[in-house]
């Protein structure tokens, strides 16, 4: 087929037929009989639980599977009429762009301009063409001001945009994205999704986007492909997907869809606007009665963490920067706190300062012992056997607490992402899980990156048990007799609504909001749950709360 025909949309952007694939030395195939076709200019959302084959399918579409990873493959993959099983990733680069989850490993140059220009240079484009293409893609992605910057000075969101620019600069007909928002705050995440939609509409780029937080991008998609155990289990419109997920895989539904299904409203909404339109159609107005949940009495116990006018300065190479600027905060035993804010707001720095990794330059910090789980749980795993990480009876006790006693002989690298997270937490808590030894504060820094909803539910249960929530304490598994305060830095508002009773919102190193979870997560736009955005009622953030209010209205 001619280049012109492909450009005009006659050929599919991606055609996969009967694809089977197994990684080298894997006991189970990663993809089983996958067939799929994406038309030029389509925006397709790839849904599925962890390890369902989403990332492998994306890698097969860009040629990394099998050319880079090896393994056994059978079937057909064509990208804009190029045979992806014959052509390598280099040849496919002109037709397909790929953006992985971690932007850190996707930049290879020192400056932004060089990074974006590299694919064109490799392709042999003339200097004038390269200059124009770099300028245009920088304008399209709103990064021209970053062109002269060094890549190691960029924030996570900026780095993700630069990696996207490098993937788009060759004007590919298909762009593949593997959880690109998992490390971004809600603001940057929403910006990225709508930027993709704009590129899709204006440039005609077909998009295949793998995501766990479906509520963030379902409304932008034309179509959803759901994967289960390596195969395609659903392929259709977003509304149909929600019906399918509601019946077959509840973990894949969105909060707004859960809200509607609890109330018995149909059709299930694919986004906030859809939900509001349906609600207007049923004649539901804005209920006035708001039931607020219990908020701990601040005088009920002595704080285990008290920061007064806390200033922390960090060295950023040639400059010192005030990352925390006069933080005042008190945390009491048993509290479950979500620490939220944009990338660079100071969340991690606050947790690291509490754990003693940074020193304050001014102010006062009184804190008991702190167990901190940093952003990358793999940093805690240095041995090749779980039992070697946690020896003895105390180690086994820690493993029991996180439900990993069965994995004592396993290699930590063979554990799933959620299990590695729990093992790292067990390492941080080992030897201080009983009585007075229990840390005053258990701090988790961005623990849900790349986790599906089922794994997040497990983490919520663990957080609640650490905080001494009786309903969640498994008496067989733990001997904890004292409740720790649990502080979790997170960008995931739905996760925060599931575990937190209080939310502290940071902005540019200062506390800009601190209050009950329902109040904070229903009082804004970006830092608000999908249900809060649908109903716009103070204090209503979860599907269950929303359903209770709506049922009252309907009656």
């Amino acid at each position, binding site marked *: 087929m001619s280049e012109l025909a492909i450009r005009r949309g006659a050929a599919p952007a991606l055609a996969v037929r009967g694809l089977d694939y197994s990684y080298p030395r894997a006991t189970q195939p990663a993809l089983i009989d996958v067939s799929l076709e994406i038309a030029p200019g389509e925006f397709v959302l790839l849904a599925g639980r962890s390890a369902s084959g989403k990332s492998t399918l994306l890698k097969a579409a860009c040629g990394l599977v099998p050319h880079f990873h090896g393994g056994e493959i059978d079937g057909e993959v064509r990208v804009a009429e190029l045979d992806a099983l014959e052509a390598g990733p280099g040849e496919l680069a002109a037709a397909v762009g790929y953006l992985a989850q971690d932007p850190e490993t996707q930049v290879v140059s020192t400056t932004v301009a060089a990074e974006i220009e590299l694919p064109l*240079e490799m392709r042999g484009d003339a200097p004038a063409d390269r200059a124009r293409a770099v300028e245009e893609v920088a304008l399209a992605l709103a990064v021209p001001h970053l062109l002269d910057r060094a890549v190691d000075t960029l924030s996570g969101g900026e780095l993700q945009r630069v990696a996207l620019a490098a993937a788009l600069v060759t004007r590919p007909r298909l762009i593949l994205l593997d959880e690109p928002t998992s490390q971004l705050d809600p603001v940057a995440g929403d910006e990225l999704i709508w930027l993709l939609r704009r590129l899709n509409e204006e440039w005609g780029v077909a998009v295949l986007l793998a995501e766990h937080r479906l509520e963030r991008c379902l409304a932008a998609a034309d179509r959803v492909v759901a994967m289960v155990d390596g195969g395609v289990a659903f392929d259709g419109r977003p509304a149909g997907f929600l019906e399918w997920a509601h019946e077959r895989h509840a973990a894949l539904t969105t909060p707004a869809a859960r809200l509607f299904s609890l109330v018995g409203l149909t059709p299930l909404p694919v986004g906030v606007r859809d939900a509001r339109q349906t609600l207007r159609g049923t004649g539901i107005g804005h209920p006035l009665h708001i039931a607020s949940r219990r908020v701990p009495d601040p005088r009920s116990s002595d704080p285990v963490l008290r920061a007064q006018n806390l200033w922390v300065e960090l060295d950023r190479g040639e400059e010192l920067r005030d990352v925390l600027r006069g933080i005042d905060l008190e945390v009491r035993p048993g509290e479950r706190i979500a620490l939220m804010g944009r990338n660079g707001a100071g969340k991690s720095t606050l947790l690291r300062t509490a754990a003693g990794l940074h020193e304050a330059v001014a102010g006062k910090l009184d804190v008991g012992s702190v*167990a901190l789980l940093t952003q990358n749980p793999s940093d805690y795993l240095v041995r090749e056997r779980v039992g070697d990480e946690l020896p003895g009876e105390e180690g086994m006790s820690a493993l029991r607490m996180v439900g990993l006693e069965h994995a004592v002989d396993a290699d930590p690298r063979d554990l799933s992402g959620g299990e590695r997270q729990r093992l790292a937490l067990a390492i941080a808590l080992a030897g201080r899980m009983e009585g007075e030894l229990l840390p005053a504060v258990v701090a988790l820094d961005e623990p849900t990156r790349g986790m599906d909803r089922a794994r997040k539910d497990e983490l919520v249960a663990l957080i609640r048990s650490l905080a001494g929530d009786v309903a969640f304490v498994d008496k067989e598994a733990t001997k904890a007799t004292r409740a720790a305060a649990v502080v979790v830095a997170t960008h995931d508002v739905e996760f925060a609504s599931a575990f937190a009773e209080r939310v502290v919102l940071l902005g540019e190193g200062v506390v800009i909001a601190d209050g009950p979870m329902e109040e904070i997560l229903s009082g804004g736009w970006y830092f608000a749950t999908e249900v809060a955005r649908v109903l716009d009622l103070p204090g209503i953030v979860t599907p269950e709360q929303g359903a209770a209010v709506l049922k009252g209205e309907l009656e």
Partner: protein
Amino acid sequence: MKSPFAYKPRRGSLQNASPGAAVSYLGAIVVVAFLYLNPLVLLAAGAAATLAGVLAGARAAVRAALRMGLSLALLVALVNALVTSRGETVIARLGDWPLFGRVDVTVEAIVAGVSYGLLAAATIVAFAVYSSCVDPDRVLRVLRPFAGRSALTATLVSRLVPVAAADAGRLRDAAALRGPAAAPVGKAPLARRLLAGSLDRAVDVAATLELRGYSLEAPRARSRRSHSRYDRRFYSVAAILLLTAIAGKLVGADDFQAYPTISIGFGPTTLAVAAIVSLSGLAPLRHGPKRRIQPADGTKRRTRRDRSSRRRRRLDQSARRSGAARV
């Protein structure tokens, strides 16, 4: 924390210059240092490298390099004083030492050591300025047509070294955060883990390079001509430096002898070479555009002449109002 020697894009003349011009200029300073043993000329080379770095905005790199270079210079002077017993001016007799034998500390050995140390310090500062001011991507792009695989290796290393440093910091933090009953992390497991992590990172970066088309066999495009308006200046200064250094050597400007007694030349040719080398440090000096200060309201600034003519007009008007005729 970012290394002070890491490249930082700035709008300086040295940063804007083509890699060839910047390397020629800083390389000429290093060549001068290697050609001469006269401490005065070596000091001048060190001063030139320092001045160039400061004018290029790489103050942090220069500070760190000076700390490192001067510490090394002191160490070299000390070691030379202990291992070399040549020289007539003995200032301390330290007796017989194991391995060293008889140790006599002489002024000549100290001065010779200082000279070697100054050479090392000047070289370190020049390399620090290079590292901080010259974009490695541009250097690699120049090298790629001649040595593709070496350039790929250099690309991976230049990307992975800072990433590995960051990983090491994170692993140390995680080791410090382990609970008391978790197995302690010694240096060996930590190093093993860091190596394994670096290999994983390298695989990811290699995959990205694949996706960017690094393995394509298509003829690579010629690099964009990256000349700047400063190139000629840097090439000229480099040429002047080299010619001065060679001419100086020929006419005996490198008059320095440490043993048996110290003889340091401070003749006119040595002074001239030292002066030229020092002044070469001004090459990155950048003139900003000349600006005319104007009042905030955008009106033209009044000169004294404007003000006196306004005053004359006011006097004329008041004279007319009072009916007096101007004589």
